[in-house]
């Protein structure tokens, strides 16, 4: 549609405007013209006033809309922010109700609903995995228990020859290894799923003393002495049984891998717990030392299942502690660094 203005200068209606609308009909041959005639001055005046009113109106509407918009957008963003910050600190299975944020916006309600569905799905997946781990342990431990009990019965047979006894013994050893491997893998899995709480007040020196006493039969059989001078006391908030496991693994390693008749030193101060024992330098890096199943350079010398130090590292990580190793003057040094949380020293 075209809008045209015609102006005829030669006639008396020069001062009039012809407002015409032409509509093409049938291939542009015919025009239908509607017109309205106005005085030019009138047109100008009316036009300017209308324009002013229009601009003013538009401005007011813009301002009102803007204000409204800001308020609603802010509300929406706040709701999203709240969800986001909750998600950051959110712990599975614990505070799901916190995520039920109310909002007037359909889109946000939808988003929150989807978020809750996602969380539910994740929770279900975690629950299933947890159940699977536990059931797997159950299912594996039972046949192991049966084999072990049958061997125990077989061993009582008085007709047993030396050769047969040796075979039974070989089975005992692998069975023990299998059982422990299963237990340790589950244990690692449990730590990774954060199924342990750090809510005990752990007295470090007491744990060390307890395990020295518990493992003394091992050190004694190798004519070794474990020395732990009682100068320091250290207490921190953590998990008692996990920390005992950490100390146990480090102490077993120290006893196992140092020569007969040697001395094992354990030192405790405000920041470190160090296990020092004699032994030749390792051929592998520190990083490999703390990873799973990686220390197989000499399978013969390795009696463990390759998970002991990996478990130690996980336990240290969980507590926010460091675990480091160095070799100096022919001695291994394994050190637990109590960095965070700051252990509250008890004088």
């Amino acid at each position, binding site marked *: 549609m075209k809008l045209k203005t015609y102006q005829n200068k030669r006639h008396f209606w020069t001062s009039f405007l012809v407002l015409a609308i032409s509509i093409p009909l049938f291939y542009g041959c015919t025009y239908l013209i509607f017109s309205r005639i106005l005085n030019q001055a009138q047109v100008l005046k009316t036009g300017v006033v209308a324009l002013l009113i229009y601009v003013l109106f538009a401005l007011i509407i813009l301002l009102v809309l803007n204000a409204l918009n800001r308020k609603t957008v802010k509300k929406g963003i706040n709701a999203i922010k709240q969800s986001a910050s909750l998600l950051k600190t959110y712990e599975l299975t614990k505070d799901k109700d916190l995520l039920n944020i109310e909002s007037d916006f359909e889109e946000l309600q939808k988003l929150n609903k989807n978020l809750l569905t996602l969380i539910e799905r994740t929770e279900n997946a975690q629950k299933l995995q947890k159940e699977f781990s*536990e059931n797997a342990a*159950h299912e594996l431990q039972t046949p192991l228990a*049966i084999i*072990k009990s049958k061997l125990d019965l077989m061993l*009582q047979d008085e007709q047993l020859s030396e050769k047969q006894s040796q075979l039974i013994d070989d089975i005992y050893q692998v069975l023990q290894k299998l059982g422990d491997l299963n237990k340790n893998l589950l244990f690692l899995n449990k730590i990774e799923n954060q199924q342990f709480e750090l809510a005990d007040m752990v007295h470090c020196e007491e744990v060390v003393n307890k395990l020295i006493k518990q493992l003394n039969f091992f050190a004694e059989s190798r004519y070794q002495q474990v020395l732990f001078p009682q100068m320091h006391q250290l207490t921190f908030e953590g998990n008692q049984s996990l920390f005992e496991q950490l100390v146990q693994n480090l102490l077993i390693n120290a006893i*196992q891998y140092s020569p007969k008749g040697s001395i094992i030193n354990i030192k405790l101060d405000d920041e470190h717990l160090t296990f020092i024992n004699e032994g030749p330098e390792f051929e592998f890096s520190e990083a490999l030392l703390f990873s799973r199943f990686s220390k197989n350079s000499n399978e013969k010398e390795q009696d463990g299942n390759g998970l002991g130090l990996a478990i130690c590292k996980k336990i240290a990580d969980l507590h926010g502690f460091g675990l480091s190793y160095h070799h100096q003057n022919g001695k291994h040094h394994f050190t637990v660094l109590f960095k965070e949380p700051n252990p509250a020293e008890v004088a």
Partner: protein
Amino acid sequence: MKILVVEDKLALAQSIISYLNSEGYTCHLATDAYEFEDFFSKHQYQFFILDVMLPFGDGLSLLKHIKTADADAPVMMISAKDAHDDRAKALALGADGFLTKPFHLSTLSTQIREILLQKSPRTALLKYKEIELNNLEKSVKILGVELDLTFTEFALLRFLMLNPNKVISKNAVIENLNAQTALYFNNFEIVAAHLHQLRQKMGTAGKYVQTVYGIGFKLS
């Protein structure tokens, strides 16, 4: 002594019963919670061994049942799950012991004896031929002469005296000494070193502590 074994894994239950029979106990077997109810209402038992996971019910509720009827009844729980809560719950409900599968039968048998010893202090004295072991005083006398034993040697001798005439594998010995894992150790070397010392201290009575083909030990 009559023991009720409640365990749904038949192969394991048969091993347990066979071993306990050889030690002079009479055993009945219930394989689920219903069978337990049946046996429990009809017989008197001096000891109970309960699996935690059972068909038609769980061991913990059976434990509650037994302890309600007789708070003093000795109960040993066994479980394939190493769940911390289960152990804590069982002990809170009054269980006298908790063993995680897989365990050695000699460990089970020792625990049964330990529990029975605790229940009747009169039997604090263990005897084997001329050897006398006092549980309360933690002392050992041979023909009236007291031996100077280390903690480990005492524990070893005690374990053997609780299982006389049985072949005990070295793993079982470590399982009992450490109450944890037998892995990481060259087990025979450890036990042999302690037994060597023990035998020397026992003098002529040391001959009762025998080594079986380098795989186990026997008090005989």
